């Protein structure tokens, strides 16, 4: 089945969902990800999926809850404002430990904002935009190929930990076309049995209950301890990142998703100029690769975080670096994409400074 195709990120993601054995999609149109529901409305339905365009994102996420609780591989997708509407539902899903896939094709906010690509929802995705102590597992693709690949991985991880997984992309990754190869994947080999699912109780077992309500605080704390233990396992096993020319780097760029693509270009350009610049690209945003940052902080002399927001992941980088070397930030907001040249400029500045002690945060003005 593996074949190369040229597709938009949104379409590749949708195609991968069908191939990953996704049984149900529930969503509501929103730019720049409407291609997901449109592709599935045609292809998915023809290939046996339940594909519903429903009355709102609120309804969609709660249908995901119901269908995931009934043991099906299911997903939804949206973009920033729509994801905000799902926050209550996500907190419920996380607490009830239901595996499912949520896709956020991030656009520029806050508010109605713009439809251009952004990374302004990093905090919401990684720290928990909903209430209470929970975590999504967050995968950040940086290519159309990964838009597809992370669907399989996302579903598998979701099932492994019974936890919602979010693919945090952005408008550009959704809209751009690249080559994509769909790998061999037999859903039946990957989807584990779900004895906890509510599929109708046979006389041979107790009834199954999907709930997030534990009225006694002691019980609720036990539930939370269980969740935290799970997150600990996730932190131990699922951290992923990519290093580019980091071995001899003096200045380390840290960026994910689209901005990591731009930073790769920056590394190329800088190396052409003989500047030892490297890149750390976190692939999982939760769990975050703090350790590698700690490790690298022994070797590098400074860090520049590049984001398409006002500085969100930079906090995680600072937590990882823990004061060892200065951490600078360069960001563009509201749907503007930083160019490799402007980042390079910033990097050169860093090399130029005699004292690299403290690089201030800076917003493009």
């Amino acid at each position, binding site marked *: 089945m593996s074949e190369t195709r040229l597709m938009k990120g949104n379409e590749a993601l949708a195609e991968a969902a069908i191939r990953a054995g996704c049984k149900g999609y529930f969503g509501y149109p*929103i*730019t*720049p990800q409407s291609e997901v529901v449109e592709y599935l409305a045609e292809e998915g339905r023809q290939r046996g999926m339940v594909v519903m365009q429903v009355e709102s994102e609120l309804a969609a996420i709660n249908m995901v809850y119901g269908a995931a609780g009934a043991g099906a591989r299911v997903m939804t997708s949206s973009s920033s404002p729509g994801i905000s509407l799902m926050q209550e539902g996500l907190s419920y899903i996380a607490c009830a430990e239901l595996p499912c896939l949520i896709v956020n094709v991030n656009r520029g906010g806050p508010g*109605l904002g713009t*439809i251009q690509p952004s990374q302004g929802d990093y905090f919401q995705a990684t720290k928990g935009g909903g209430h209470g102590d929970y975590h999504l597992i967050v995968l950040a693709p940086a290519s159309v190929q990964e838009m597809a690949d992370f669907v399989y991985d996302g579903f598998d991880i979701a099932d492994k930990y019974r936890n919602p997984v979010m693919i945090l992309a952005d408008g550009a990754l959704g809209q751009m076309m690249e080559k994509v190869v769909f790998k061999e994947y037999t859903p039946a080999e990957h989807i584990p049995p779900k004895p906890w699912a509510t599929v109708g109780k046979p006389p041979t077992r107790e009834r199954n209950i999907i709930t997030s309500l534990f009225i006694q605080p002691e019980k609720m704390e036990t539930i939370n301890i269980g969740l935290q233990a799970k997150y600990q396992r996730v932190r131990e096993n699922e951290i992923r990142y990519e290093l580019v020319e980091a071995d001899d780097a003096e200045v380390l760029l840290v960026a994910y998703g689209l901005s990591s693509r731009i930073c790769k270009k920056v590394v190329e350009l800088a190396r052409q100029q003989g500047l030892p610049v490297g890149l750390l690209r976190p692939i999982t945003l939760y769990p975050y690769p703090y350790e590698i940052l700690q490790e690298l902080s022994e070797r590098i002399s400074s860090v520049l975080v590049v984001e398409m927001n006002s500085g969100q992941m930079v906090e995680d980088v600072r937590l990882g670096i823990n004061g060892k070397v200065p951490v600078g930030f360069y960001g563009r907001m509201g749907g503007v994409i930083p160019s490799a040249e402007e980042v390079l400029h910033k990097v050169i500045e860093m090399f130029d400074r005699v004292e690299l002690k403290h690089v201030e945060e800076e917003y493009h003005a």
Partner: protein
Amino acid sequence: MASVRGTVKINIQTCKGCELCVEACPQESLKLSKEINAIGYHYAVLVQDNCTGCVNCALVCPDAVITVYRSIKKGGKRELKEPIATITHVSRDIKVSIDTLSQSQQSIGRVDI
């Protein structure tokens, strides 16, 4: 020339050539131009001087680009004046093919949000 009781002024720079006024005009006074305006549309023009000033075209015009005038009624009676409608920019055939039209439509329109 027939008795002219009204006329229309069309802002041809902002007309989007939707043709709804053409449809709405009971006098068949309006047609679309062959030429396109700066925003890419075949705009509406008055092609006959039989306009009655009935306002129909203005009412249905989505872009509010039509202004309608009528002869001033003095002493309770309409005073009929000389024709004043000017047919501009229309040289040949007036009707344009839908094919071209729908193409030009793509250059303006909805905003995705």
